[in-house]
């Protein structure tokens, strides 16, 4: 129970949080670990450990949800149990390692199964990594069931300027819209249900190998320098225009993944089912995921060339928006909010024959806009490193900080062989127009 002061009511998990809770459940049942991600902020100078500990203390008290477990109540709706939280600082650990050891450390942290949102205790961890006398890196380890990249970007700004206000607040949507009658929800959800009924004909495949247990998370991060980023952006401007970053990088990711699946199944015309983030308009709280998901089918014809692939992807996502399928998906999630977590994956397993999608992709755009300094140190680069589940077994993520593009490849052991990883990187390099080591 809270030690003192204000007790907050439980915070309901809504819409895509329910689906992510289902993915978390899938990962745990199939021994894939927890649905964790890392956020990496590289800095120049020496870390001000006292200021960082102060930020960890203030934010740990300001947002009790950072210590809450998620659980279903008597009405079966999943809620963050803020009413049973003892406010405490966010844990902070200091490491002294070389820069070459940074990504292996992140891989270890992602596979360590902490934090655990099913138990009370910290849901966010600070790791201060001192990589040289004049460089250090802040690594945040967080659960995708509580945060997403939008929320973490905003939280980073609070870490940089935490102030002293420890007044507890939920940081989420405190008063979600009251549930509508099931008949009303069903009418809204029907377009998405009908869309799902078209899935079986698509014959989608992912990197998931039936009969092979997906193991630990693997990641490969490549930070392109500014000159290389300029080359990539110039090719993008000539191919798809200066501003369509999301469809451009998603097409590149889809073509890379398709090249590997096509090599596995040379006799098939391999389509790609892309899971793309869709940002909702309106209030964007710190906690609760902001992203709905588009499920876009890209045929082998769509993906044959990069430029038309980008256009096809844009047209299909526009069609998804125009048919208001995101709102329809939200209604479906509301219909399912009292269902056990494993039920969230059932429609995908029924309609997609065991596949959730072919790959997870996101272009998060600018990394933490407005974050230039971190407690006296200049921020030199930043990016997110999400782990993924199997299926699909692979995720490709791009983000940009101050003219520097970073690419994260994330996959599960058992889903991608070393040779296939090389093939995927080769295709990525061909489309990006620059080498990918």
């Amino acid at each position, binding site marked *: 129970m809270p030690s003192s002061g204000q007790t907050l009511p439980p915070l309901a998990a809504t819409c895509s949080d329910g689906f992510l809770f289902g993915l978390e459940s899938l990962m745990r049942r199939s021994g894939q670990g927890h649905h964790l991600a890392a956020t990496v902020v590289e800095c120049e100078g020496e870390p001000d450990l006292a200021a960082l500990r102060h930020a960890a203390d203030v934010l740990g008290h300001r947002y009790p949800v950072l210590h809450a477990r998620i659980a279903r109540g008597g009405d079966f709706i999943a809620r963050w149990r803020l009413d049973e939280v003892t406010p405490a600082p966010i844990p902070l650990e200091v490491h002294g390692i070389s820069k070459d050891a940074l990504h292996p450390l992140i891989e270890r942290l992602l596979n360590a199964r902490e934090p655990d949102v099913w138990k009370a205790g910290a849901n966010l961890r600070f790791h201060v990594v001192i990589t040289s006398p004049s460089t250090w890196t802040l690594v945040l380890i967080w659960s995708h069931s509580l945060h997403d990249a939008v929320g973490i970007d905003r939280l980073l700004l609070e870490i940089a300027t935490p102030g002293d206000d420890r007044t507890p607040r939920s940081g989420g949507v405190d008063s979600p819209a009251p549930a509508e009658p099931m008949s009303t929800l069903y009418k809204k959800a029907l377009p998405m249900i009908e869309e799902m009924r078209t899935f079986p004909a698509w014959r989608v495949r992912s990197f998931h190998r039936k009969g092979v247990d997906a193991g630990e998370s693997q990641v490969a991060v490549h930070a392109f320098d500014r000159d290389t980023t300029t080359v990539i952006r110039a090719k993008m401007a000539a191919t798809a225009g*200066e*501003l369509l970053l*999301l469809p451009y990088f998603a097409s590149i990711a889809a073509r890379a993944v398709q090249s590997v699946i096509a090599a596995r199944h040379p006799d098939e015309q391999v389509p790609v089912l892309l899971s793309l983030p869709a*940002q909702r*308009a*309106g209030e964007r709280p710190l906690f609760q995921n902001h992203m709905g998901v588009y499920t876009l089918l890209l045929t082998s014809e769509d993906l044959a060339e990069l430029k038309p692939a980008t256009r096809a992807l*844009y047209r299909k*996502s526009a069609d998804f*928006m125009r048919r208001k399928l995101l709102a329809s998906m939200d209604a479906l999630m509301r219909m399912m909010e009292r269902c056990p977590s494993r039920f969230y994956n059932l429609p995908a397993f029924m309609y997609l024959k065991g596949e959730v999608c072919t790959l997870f992709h996101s272009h998060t755009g600018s990394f933490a806009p407005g974050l230039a300094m971190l407690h006296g140190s200049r921020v030199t680069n930043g990016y997110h490193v999400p782990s993924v589940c199997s299926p699909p077994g692979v995720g490709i993520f791009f983000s940009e900080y101050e003219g520097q593009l970073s690419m994260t490849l994330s996959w599960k052991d058992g889903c991608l062989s070393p040779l296939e990883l090389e093939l995927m990187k080769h295709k990525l390099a061909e489309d990006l127009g620059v080498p990918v080591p």
Partner: protein
Amino acid sequence: MENELTSLIASDILDTDQAITPQSDLFAAGLDSMGIMQLLLLIEDRFGVEIDPADLSRDNFSTAEKIAALVAEKKAASSR
């Protein structure tokens, strides 16, 4: 048109507390890749014009005023 665009961008696209005017720098206010896609769709639906990828430049989309000028130009070209 520019006032309608400004109001739609402020309510449906951007997540900002600052007031948006037709001259506000939309990229500084948080217009990102996903916002651009939503904005293109909104322009197609509301004004009935399709924006060519060649016109998708930071300059053309930096303010609601410039977007309105581009949309007006496209409308005029399609009615010729």
